[in-house]
């Protein structure tokens, strides 16, 4: 039960809650069919997991689906060193632009269809996602944090770090396959 509850208990959402992505396959599918994708990274992406750093997984994901990364985190330099499609911009600023139908994305090539969130403080993601949910209804949002994010369109469930790394690993593999 707690696996599909908001990770921070009091952050109870409204009437629509994210669908849980149980399997990496589904995540891969969503990303492959995600259209133009923007990955929003928080400072948490610098976390080192048991095998690789979170960042490595995320950059792999972004590369695999040709996504752009937006971040104002300390990981920016590292990300940029691996990926040209990356912009230093705050998650909030990005979210603010998304509802504008005229916005052509950080690369000027068109609107995003899917946004992926990872590594921000839980409550910040929660809030940015309610913003997008309500004001950018055409955009699909996916949380890849290891916590259930009810305001996303799709979210992982609450899991421990080991499960999470496994999930990310599998996801990267599916995407690369």
């Amino acid at each position, binding site marked *: 039960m707690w696996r599909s509850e908001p990770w921070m208990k009091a952050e109870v959402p409204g009437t629509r809650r994210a669908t849980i992505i149980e399997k990496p396959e589904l995540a891969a599918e969503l990303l492959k069919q995600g259209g133009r994708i923007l990955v929003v990274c*928080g400072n948490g992406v610098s976390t080192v997991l048991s095998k690789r750093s979170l960042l490595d997984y995320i950059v792999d994901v972004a590369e695999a689906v040709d996504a752009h990364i937006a971040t104002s985190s300390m990981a920016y*330099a590292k990300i940029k060193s691996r990926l040209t499609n990356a912009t230093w911009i705050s998650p909030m600023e990005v979210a603010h632009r998304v509802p504008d139908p005229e916005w052509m994305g950080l690369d000027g090539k068109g609107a995003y269809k899917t946004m992926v969130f990872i590594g921000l403080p839980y409550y910040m993601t929660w809030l940015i996602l309610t913003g997008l949910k309500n004001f950018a209804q055409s955009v699909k949002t996916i949380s890849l944090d290891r916590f259930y994010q009810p305001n996303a369109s799709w979210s992982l469930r609450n899991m421990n770090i080991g499960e999470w790394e496994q999930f990310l690993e599998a996801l990267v593999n599916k995407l690369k396959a």
Partner: protein
Amino acid sequence: MKCFSIKKVSLVSKKDLYIKLKEATTTLGVLRDVEISIDRIIYEEFEEPIGPTPMPSIKDLRSWDYTLLKRYRPFYMPFCELCCLCTFGKCDLSMGKRGACGLDMAAQQSRIVLLACCIGAATHTSHAKHLVEYLIERYGRDIPLDLGEGVGVEAPIVRLVTGIKPRTLRDLEDVLSYVDNQLIHLLASTHTGQEGDALDFESKVLHVGMMDHLAMEVADIAQISVMGFPKSDPDAPLIDSGFGIVDKSKPVIMVVGHNVPSAAGIIDYLIENGLLGQVEVTGLCCTAHDAARYNPRTKIIGPISWQVRYIRSGLPDVVVVDEQCIKTNLIDEARKVDAVFIATSEKNCQGLRDRTEDPVDEVVKDLVERREDGVLIFDAEKVGEVAVKAAIALAPKRRQYKEKPISREAIIEYAKRCIKCMECVRTCPNNLPIMDAMGAAAKGDLSILSGLYEQCIGCVKCEGVCRAKLPIHSMIVWADDVFEKETFKVRAGRGAIKDTEIRAVGGPIVFGEIPGVIAFVGCSNYAYGGRDVYEMSEEFAKRRYIILASGCAAMTLGMYKDEEGKTLYERFPGSFDAGGVVNVGSCVSNAHIAGAAIKIANIFARRPLRANYEEIADYVLNRVGAVGVAWGAMSQKAASIASGFWRLGVPVIVGPHGSKYRRALLGRSDREEDWVIYNARTGEKVYCEPAPEHLFYMAETKEEAIVMIAKLCMRPNDTTKGRAIKLSHYADLYKKFYNALPEDIHLFVRTPADIPITMKDEILALLKEKDWKEKTIPDPTLLPRLIRRRE
């Protein structure tokens, strides 16, 4: 009631003249045998003619608000998608739905923001009213305002907004009654079925903010003038601070809250009875600041987040609370350590018996003998006497509490009882890894636990959910005893900035040579601990920005030391000048920060001040490189303070928790049309630059904030020399953290002369890449009426 006519704002003086007339012939007929109470004597001594918007109502500055809001558009992040404010509800407003009253989600979010800001502004206003009333009762209505030598413009916000030039406490009452009046209309706008437009709600939010600044200014200039606080003194004393400075051998009184009279009552009683120094007066939150301004022997324990740990330390014998930001169940904490509790505000009665009319000794007896845990006393003098007498009587009995409340062994034993349910982690606002810390602690390693200390905001919510009922907060705090011994220095709040200082630095600021004025303000709801604030302010102080501070943030600033054991307040001067670190004072002293920006426009640039809001705000927005940072902003007051800054054209950055204010006001550097301004010289509309880029920004990390602060200090009016300095800081800081040039630097280079010499080549390369074109530097304004059509 309006005793003044808005058309002819006139100034009040001597009190309650009485004239008996046998007969008076007037235009209204003949009056016989009347007593006349003369309420005011008009003497027009305020040389400056009245400006366009004296005492503006909601609508009068609406077009300015729209100018701002169309550039800095709100991004709403519903913290709740439902509304339950009337019995039509609940209404689900998500995904484009409307409530039964017709409201949509954007309007509802802005409405909640308005409500929060109304609460915040009402709180400052109520505070100011209480204070002014108290001072009038004690010192009389006609006591003149005196902000100290070198301060001619005593009340820049009051003059700017109302057109009143206040001379005495009485005049401040006029201001407050205008504030009351506006706040009532603003609050009314949140009723079901009133305002329905998000931007109009936002415009009202800005109006509330302006009212809030008025109230804060009134409160602070009143107490400064009358209570002997430092008067705009850069050398205000350094106050002893931290847990380590409390002398356990003496009776200890703790004061907490925001409204100084009760604390002053205690200090007065001590002085009158020769007891000062024999009883420790220790404070938290703004009351600490203000009590220290009242008497520098007051000790500043720390910010709001330290309330529980301080009481649990057992040190205070008597806990005196006044108002605002006080943990509402402190009485329970006091009870646990047998300390007595005195509440002193109508706004915060805590269900206690009102003992204001009872004899002091009876009340003291009841407290000391624990017949009552706490009492309510509305008279500051009496509070003073009761608190001191109770502390003296209790201190000997409370010796056992003053030792470390929880031993290393006890912590380990507790930790072993943790059942790893994770409730604590999922409840902690900072998601601290409590469970892991317990695991380590159970094995005797307290380092993780004590490592949580800095990030713990003392909310104690973890304890409320712990299935093993562990005293988690206490365990964190006493896992290490360093903090118990820590002592710091906090410079006492100096109050206003002198006109003379403004004259000296106005030019360098407006031309950009002093790269910015950065104000660290607000509460201590830090996501990663207070060190962020210290590091940010140190970074910019070293770079010779002007650093201002107030409230809890001003304490945080003083709570870290360099290698030589010196705090920022000891390392940097308290003057409003490059490299100064200036504690203005308590929350209400924030008014002086806004006041400084206003005074730059008025005193340095000679823009008319009186009732001339739009022009001054336009000036500040385009020319004064000031940024507010409320890194741990928590309260409704913080929200209203921020909105007062926005309307004045000062951007505010908050930390991650600030996202819970549920909307950002962000500019779009990618939309050129948003940055078109008038060149006042020519009347032309020109694309200028995205400066300042945002009005209300939430940063995730201190590094992001640092970069953003440097960026937001840029203003269209910067001279090339000034811009080069600002850009070099911006680029340098960005490089420091991200190892490259900022990708948007080309947006802020107007002419080659803007380019910092040290980075010339790389910037030129980037400009080329970005297809940069030279722009003329306009005389920037957003107000068509300020165009000086010379052609």
